[in-house]
């Protein structure tokens, strides 16, 4: 950067030569301000989504840059929400990118006093083994002379924040396992 550029970049110089002698506006604009661009405009893509909190179903636009969610805001196209979000919906970015998110599988042994980390695939294997064993233990072909062909050994709770497709697979798998104790927030 030459001296001339430096001088011309000096706000005092701009004060003396430009339209802002008091140095309160154009003359003092910083380099950062000059190049400011909102991350909602520089995102690589905008993905259409739906708010995950309550059941109003507000539209969301998810802004992605370098494979990271950088902003979530209301979708103005939505006939339901017209681009608006409540405080919970407004906190979606923090929900999905915040420090409260866990990214490691954790395991607590019976009688253990703390978590231990576990490989995801191992965990899935262990869970599958337990499902099979518990299902057998609680199996019933009949109750009071009526055919029931079910297991009372395992149960599930949850689903009201899950996708329809997820619930569908869950209900399908549970029913095929003969497990009937499957419930969600709609009961609560």
């Amino acid at each position: 950067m030459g001296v001339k550029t430096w001088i011309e970049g000096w706000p005092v110089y701009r004060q003396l030569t430009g339209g802002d002698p008091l140095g309160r506006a154009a003359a003092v604009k910083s380099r950062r301000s000059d190049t400011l661009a909102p991350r909602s405009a520089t995102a690589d893509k905008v993905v259409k989504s739906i708010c995950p909190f309550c059941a109003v179903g507000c539209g969301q636009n998810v802004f992605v840059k370098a494979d990271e969610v950088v902003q979530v805001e209301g979708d103005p196209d939505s006939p339901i929400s017209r681009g608006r979000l409540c405080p919970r919906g407004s906190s979606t970015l923090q929900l999905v990118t915040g420090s409260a998110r866990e990214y490691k599988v954790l395991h607590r042994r019976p009688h253990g006093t703390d978590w231990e980390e576990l490989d995801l695939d191992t965990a899935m294997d262990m869970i599958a083994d337990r499902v099979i064993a518990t299902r057998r233990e609680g199996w019933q072909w009949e109750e009071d002379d009526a055919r029931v062909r079910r297991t009372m050994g395992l149960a599930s709770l949850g689903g009201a924040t899950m996708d329809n497709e997820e619930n569908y697979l869950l209900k399908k798998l549970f029913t095929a396992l003969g497990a009937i104790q499957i419930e969600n927030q709609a009961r609560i």
Partner: protein
Amino acid sequence: MAPVDIVIGRKPDLTGAMLGDTDPAHQGGYVDHPPRMGFFTDTSVCIGCKACEVACKEWNAIPEDGLVFTGMSMDNTQGLGADTWRHVAFVEQRKPLAVQDPGVLHDGVDVLALAAQGSGTPPDRAGMTPTTPGDPGDLRWLMASDVCKHCTHAACLDVCPTGSLFRTEFGTVVVQEDICNGCGYCIPACPYGVIDQRKDDGRAWKCTLCYDRLTVGQEPACAKNCPTNSIQFGPLDELRERADARLARLQEAGVSDARLYGRDPHDGVGGDGAFFLLLDEPEVYGLPPDPVVTTRDLPAMWRRVGAAALVLVGTAVAAFAAGRRV
């Protein structure tokens, strides 16, 4: 009025020149600038959901501002500051809202004395904790989202010694975080108690009216999210017209408490870029009833400073004159 007319010690009214006219962007040397943009916050449709607070924090990545239960109705934010750029005030009053039927009926309990128990507010000073004196069958719950006023004559901007605080081409007032040196002068200069210092970095922070978003034609995060359109964003001229019509309609409909705050370009700060429709006196919401930009008096101050300097010189001369004899 001449655009620049700075002569220290001159008698005539310097206010206009010192403070700029009502097109502050033009005054600031921007040519072909966009219209002045602002907020009209209509508190009569605010539901106090605080979406504005969260949306603002998300967009501007503002740190958490303390986990404190206050007992101030549903307000645990307390006020604007470096880490709170939108603040929703909650006011519970024994007053009617037009002919709204609040359904409540209270008896015989000195609520103000109760308020003194633990709220830290002396009874005679309790704004409304839990409520103001009045008819025990009356209740209204006022909510209002406060924000930087983006004054036409902005004291924070005037006193900033670095040019960090500056007037943008949209007529808004913005802190440039790469320039701010943490001198803190803007903080006591603001007549509304808006701008404040972030403790861990020493710099001053406040609402930017989402300057970055404005540059590409997006509206500020708070206004965009506001579920009931209490926060309205747009060219200030339009907002003022809309607000006048709204006020007239409310007044006609019997909401006689409605008033505009900061809408008048001739008030002590030359009108606010972010102005409000309130349902009670400004101080009820924690707003100053008649704020003045301190730099309005700066010419007089400089004159007094000059005079005092001369007095000091005179004192010194006299001291040496007298000192010969002493």
